[in-house]
């Protein structure tokens, strides 16, 4: 917190555009604010909206890197804005753009919720089982390592940063994204889920699924939860290749 220069000015350029307003045109707007110690982009944008521009749109909820609401492009890189510290931008110039690949609501606000909902339905992002659980009885035993492996992938917060950093997604609008593939791997290792590889093949066994990934790994490079996406996508691809070839 101490390496802040006192009273530094931050110049923040933001793409403003309201697609619902026919008079609106995409415009870069410059805001200058005083930097504060420990300032995150959450605090900076809040200051801009309170003091300089009441109609600037963006999304924050938890402001602690947990809820996944605030993905945006900061100097071209997709990040969670709440976890981004202004002091890391040495020249004090920051450019903010909405994440690509999602429906733009306004300015920095994009509809990740709608996209993720579609993704969840597409890959069946829930436990598929024919068993009914008697919740009064002692729970089924799960190997601790398996539970832990499932949790590792369950940590995805569906922020959309992997989708916004994906080259395949640009070429193939229907690409399910690392988030969708990760969901499939997560359920495939969860002992409660009865789906088999052949079921997953039906979901993702094409170029909009596992075979569309070009392994450029923008997803893993930018994932704020540092999920092992490269390894898990490769793992799933091997399994799906076997399905295809049988």
């Amino acid at each position: 917190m101490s390496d802040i220069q006192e009273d530094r000015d931050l110049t923040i350029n933001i793409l403003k555009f309201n697609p619902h307003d026919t008079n609106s045109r995409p415009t870069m707007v410059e805001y200058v604010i005083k930097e504060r110690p420990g300032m995150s982009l959450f605090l900076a944008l809040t200051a801009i909206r309170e003091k300089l521009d009441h109609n600037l749109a963006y999304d924050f909820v938890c402001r602690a890197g947990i809820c996944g609401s605030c993905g945006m492009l900061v100097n071209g890189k997709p990040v969670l804005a709440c976890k981004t510290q202004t002091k890391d931008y040495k020249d004090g110039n920051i450019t903010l753009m909405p994440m690509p690949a999602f429906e733009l609501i306004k300015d920095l606000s994009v509809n990740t919720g709608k996209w993720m909902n579609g993704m969840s339905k597409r890959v069946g992002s829930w436990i598929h089982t024919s068993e009914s659980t008697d919740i009064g009885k002692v729970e089924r035993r799960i190997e601790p390592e398996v539970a832990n492996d499932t949790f590792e992938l369950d940590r995805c917060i569906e922020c959309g940063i992997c989708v916004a950093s994906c080259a395949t997604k640009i070429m193939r609008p229907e690409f399910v994204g690392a988030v969708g593939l990760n969901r499939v791997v997560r359920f495939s290792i969860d002992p409660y889920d009865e789906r088999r590889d052949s079921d997953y093949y039906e979901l993702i066994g094409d170029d909009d699924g596992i075979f569309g990934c070009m392994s450029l790994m923008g997803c893993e490079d930018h994932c704020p939860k540092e999920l092992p996406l490269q390894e898990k996508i490769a793992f799933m691809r091997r399994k799906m290749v076997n399905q295809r070839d049988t």
Partner: protein
Amino acid sequence: MKIQYCDALVIGGGLAGLRSAVAASVKGLNVVVISMVPVKRSHSAAAQGGMQASLGNSKMSQGDNEDLHFADTVKGSDWGCDQEVARMFVNTAPKAIRELASWGVPWTRITQGDRTAVINAKETTISEEPDVHGLIHSRDFGGTKKWRTCYTGDATGHSMLFSVANEAIKRDIEIQDRKEAISLIHKGDRCYGAVVRDLVTGELSAYVAKGTMIATGGYGRVYRTTTNAVICEGTGHAIALETGKVPLGNMEAVQFHPTPIVPSGILLTEGCRGDGGVLRDKDGHRFMPDYEPEKKELASRDVVARRMMEHIKKGKGVGIGRESFVWLDISILGRDHIERNLRDVQDIAITFNGIDPADEGEKGWLPVHPAQHYSMGGIRTDRTGHTALKGLFSAGEAACWDLHGFNRLGGNSVSEAVVAGMIIGNYFADFCRDNDIEISTNYVKEAILKVDLEIDKILTYEGPEDIFEIKARMQDIMDNKVGVFRNGIELKEAVEELEELYRKTKEITVKAKDKIHNDELTEAYRVPKMLKIALCVAKGANDRTESRGAHFREDYEKRDDANWLNRTLAYWRAEEDTMPTLEYEPIGVMDMELPPGFRGYGSKGNIILHPDAEKRQKEVDEIRERMTKQGKDRIEIQDAIMPYRLHREYKAINFRVGDRL
């Protein structure tokens, strides 16, 4: 004007709302969930440490059962809770855990054999038996007799929320996000739904439903320093309050969490201390054992927060004045433990403070200071979650059901959210199934129009005040005068200043006149609602001349059961009022299973006992003694002391490992 009809309307898409929606969907009802944010972004996701349920699987939780969870919860509440609700809750919590496991929550599981844990700052070996291998694990949390808090690393709320949300998606429940309920539609003593504002288009529409549930979480953002998400503004409470019929209960009961990180106020889970982390002062001294020899860092949150502030006031904090803090040391747990079980804590500390808490010694210590965290108070309901307005229900943190009384135990929040979603969700669904409504479309249109006119009116204000400044001023008043330590002088000032601010919300000018994407307009209709909530908190705190749980009065240090064993009910009687009207609902000692006494932590002898406490204790003891002699089991004895009603499936026995089936 658009009117949408459904059987069940759920306002709020966190754990309580979504689980209730699932309950309604299971009964074949047409459910609509509206949420200000995509539901998986709800604040339930931010719960880190875990969920209490007395599974009793691991070594350190052996012998745990509903009775112990019940007693811990009642003591934690400082006898402010409804003990029948506490019984309903503790009996359903193990079922909730097991249901969630089957819905995909990857609960951390027990590994047989030896493991090392840090207990009371010492490395201790714990040995797990082979017969519990693979069962659900639990960690220690404050104010509990056993290690009872089940968890997935330190992202428990996230895993729980995603599982329940995915269950709702699986069931094709209609979820509409970026929508805000800004008024309830009601006539006489019946609720008919809500007027809802689309936060993208600004459009107002009506949702008419046989039953409406408010599950909108807490009201922490009336404070400046809070762990709460920015959406936790209490506007769900306000729309219930504004009906004039529905009281808010115990609004002064506000929890301050001991260990949010300084200065951002972002939460560091109680799991840090549950797993063995300690608090240190400016000299590096571990001070909690000096104050709380038995529970140390793991007394209830109200007690630990006060002890920290007390210690800081003695000049033992790091830094000076209001910036002063103490250290949370989890480095003693070792890097392996932190990087597996407290990873989000590590991430937060590195990101926001540049400190890696796994670094050994002072280098890894984290600056912490108590901050607003949880709202025990809320929309007052009966035991089925029904409010005074027929057809309006409430569940989770938004409600005063009243499970937590004047202090909630760590691990009981997400637990309440999902358990209430099961219990209240089912009562709510039954109500929606069994009751019909008749309401003219004209009446509904009038309700929309009224809100529309109010918004138009706000846009015509021409005053000197700024709504953002009013909000900031409110938050400062709440922080400075309605905080951890309270006194009559400051509370009186707070009440007066908040009332004045409330008046000033009509003396503003909203510069841009657009009805959409106009944040100043949004604040202009929300902030008066927040001020109503803040006034309920401050007035409740001012009038309650005792100390109970998280409500601590420097001028009335004793818990006064003789005069204050009751629940505050705050009403907003008329639209033009500028102050809530307070009433009190007694809590009957003679109905209690656990009559009031000493909690086992906090200051001893600081209680003015209720005249009936001893009498009831004697009665309870006699029943227990007699029935034990007759060979009755603990469930039969409990039923004789304080019978309670619950759906059969939730009232059923919870089997534990080792029980004979």
